[in-house]
């Protein structure tokens, strides 16, 4: 029982983290029609910035805040210097250009921070276990991730659906010429959306940093997960990304936790312990393949064009 609740919360936490990453990806893709493979690099940069700033300032929160600002700025610089020129180009051009950016960022990190990973230690007040149910404790930091991510998801939803900027963003997604003709500075709007996406990726990276080691290439695995999510959820749909992210986070976490035991009941011990890790890593890809075969447009296709 305890294990089930704990793994359930772990799945929720991982799913919400994935949502932060996927939200930026799906915003940028849905609105600017830009495939950004370097999104995972922004996640990595968020983690490196947080570890560095936290070490400088001696405060976890201050470090996180500075890192958030730094990834926002980095995203804006990236958009204005390079990616802006790729709008309206073929998706393959995006893939090639942003693949180049991945190479660049990985190497730049190796040059600046060295090949060894970094650690981002948690402050004492975030390491205490919190009682959530009678007899069941859960780490405060993971709870904090859940709360922060839920809050961000809510703000994002309200921002996109209820504010004027959000209205412009949605309008720009369906017809960029029209919104430009209405006298809206579409260039600035795009820069802001990209910056927002970068900051979301950075937030995901810096929140994940204390749980994993901060290392080169950490964005690549998780980037693919984020892509899986936006494809399952339906490209351009924030609601779809949210539900798919929770779903994927759950399946991945629960699969890793319970599949080995499940397999051991049908297979011999040795066979089960070899098959389980591979199978649980495959689960989400399997899920995506099934979803796409049944619904080629994803589960919640955004009504675009």
């Amino acid at each position: 029982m305890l294990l089930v609740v704990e793994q359930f919360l772990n799945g929720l936490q991982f799913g919400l983290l994935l949502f932060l990453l996927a939200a930026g990806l799906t915003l940028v893709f849905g609105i600017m029609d830009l495939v950004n493979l370097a999104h995972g690099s922004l996640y990595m940069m968020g983690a490196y910035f947080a570890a560095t700033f936290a070490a400088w300032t001696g405060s976890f929160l201050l470090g996180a805040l500075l890192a958030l600002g730094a990834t926002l700025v980095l995203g804006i610089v990236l958009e204005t210097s390079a990616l802006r020129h790729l709008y309206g180009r073929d998706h393959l051009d995006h893939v090639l250009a942003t693949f180049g950016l991945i190479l660049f960022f990985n190497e730049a990190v190796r040059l600046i921070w060295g090949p060894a990973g970094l650690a981002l230690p948690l402050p004492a007040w975030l390491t205490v276990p919190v009682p959530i149910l009678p007899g069941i404790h859960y780490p405060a930091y993971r709870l904090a991730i859940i709360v922060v991510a839920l809050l961000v998801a809510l703000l994002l939803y309200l921002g996109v659906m209820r504010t004027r900027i959000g209205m412009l963003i949605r309008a720009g997604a369906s017809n960029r010429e029209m919104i430009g003709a209405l006298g809206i500075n579409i260039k600035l709007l795009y820069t802001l959306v990209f910056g927002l996406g970068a900051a979301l990726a950075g937030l995901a990276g810096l929140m994940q940093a204390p749980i994993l080691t901060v290392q080169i290439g950490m964005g690549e695995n998780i980037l693919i997960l984020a892509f899986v999510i936006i494809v399952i959820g339906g490209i351009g749909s924030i609601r779809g990304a949210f539900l798919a992210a929770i779903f994927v986070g759950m399946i991945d976490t629960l699969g890793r936790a319970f599949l080995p035991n499940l397999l051991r009941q049908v297979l011999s011990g040795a066979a089960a312990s070899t098959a389980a890790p591979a199978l649980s890593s495959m689960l989400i890809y399997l899920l995506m393949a099934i979803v796409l075969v049944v619904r080629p447009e994803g589960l919640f296709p955004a009504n675009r064009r």
Partner: protein
Amino acid sequence: MKGLSVSKAVTALMLAGLVLLPLYSHLSGNIFILTLFTRIVILALAAASLNLIMGFGGMMSFGHAAYLGIGGYAVGMLAQEGVGSGFIQFPVALAASALYALVIGALSLRTRGLYFIMITLAFAQMAYYVASGLARYGGDDGLTVYNRSDFSGLVNLSNRTQFYYLCLACLFGVIFLIWRIVNSRFGLVVQGLRSNEQRMQAIGFPAKRYQLACFVISGTMCGLAGALLANNTDFVSPAVMYWTRSGDLMVMVILGGMGTLFGPVIGAVVYLLLEEFLSQITEYWALIMGPLLLLIVLFGRGGIMGLLGRVGRG
């Protein structure tokens, strides 16, 4: 037509260079260059196979490295089990790749656009994790191939020069085949589907069947590259199938010029030579390579082939 002649001249020069390379290697005593170019030729073969579906068929497979792995593992696993004959290993590698491509293609072709890119990627990642789980065949650590494929004296794969020429012959054979396919009725239908699928279907062509056939041919060709690669490195590991490797292949195709016959070969030669050259100057070669790719996209539409065409036209 001057533009055409510049890219033709460069292509001819490069092909002549590839054919004469072992001679240079012997005369100068530089064995390393032969080893390097064997790898380049094999990956050029893989890039050319990807170009068949990506450049001519408009199907952007982001999981092409899976066939490299499947072809490689076919050779590695058979060698491990004591089947050393290349006459068995290579056909098995091709058949396994074809079968995988048939299943993956049939499922993936239900989607299009970015969804197609992602689903091909997902299936390749699955293959990656399957290989990681093969404890008997090295799992994560990969599998050492102790004996290269044995062609009973016909060609000796342990002889560098012979192996190089075998790889080059395979590359030329595949490019010849692609040329024949692209100019056949079948190839014209596939290219027509790239331009306008609805219209082609309306005329009465079973679109998916044509695309699937093309997908399987491409996968089989890439499986051949995988079998050669395993022989070249005497080693296969799941890393061959990791998604960044598929990205590498895509980069080679786009860099050289998508939808041109020799573009992927030029792309592979330039990309891998650049990687080699830059890594000799600085340990941080990717710091230069990354922005270089970005600049090529921004200023060199149509890749190197397109660039050469524009240079020729002035």
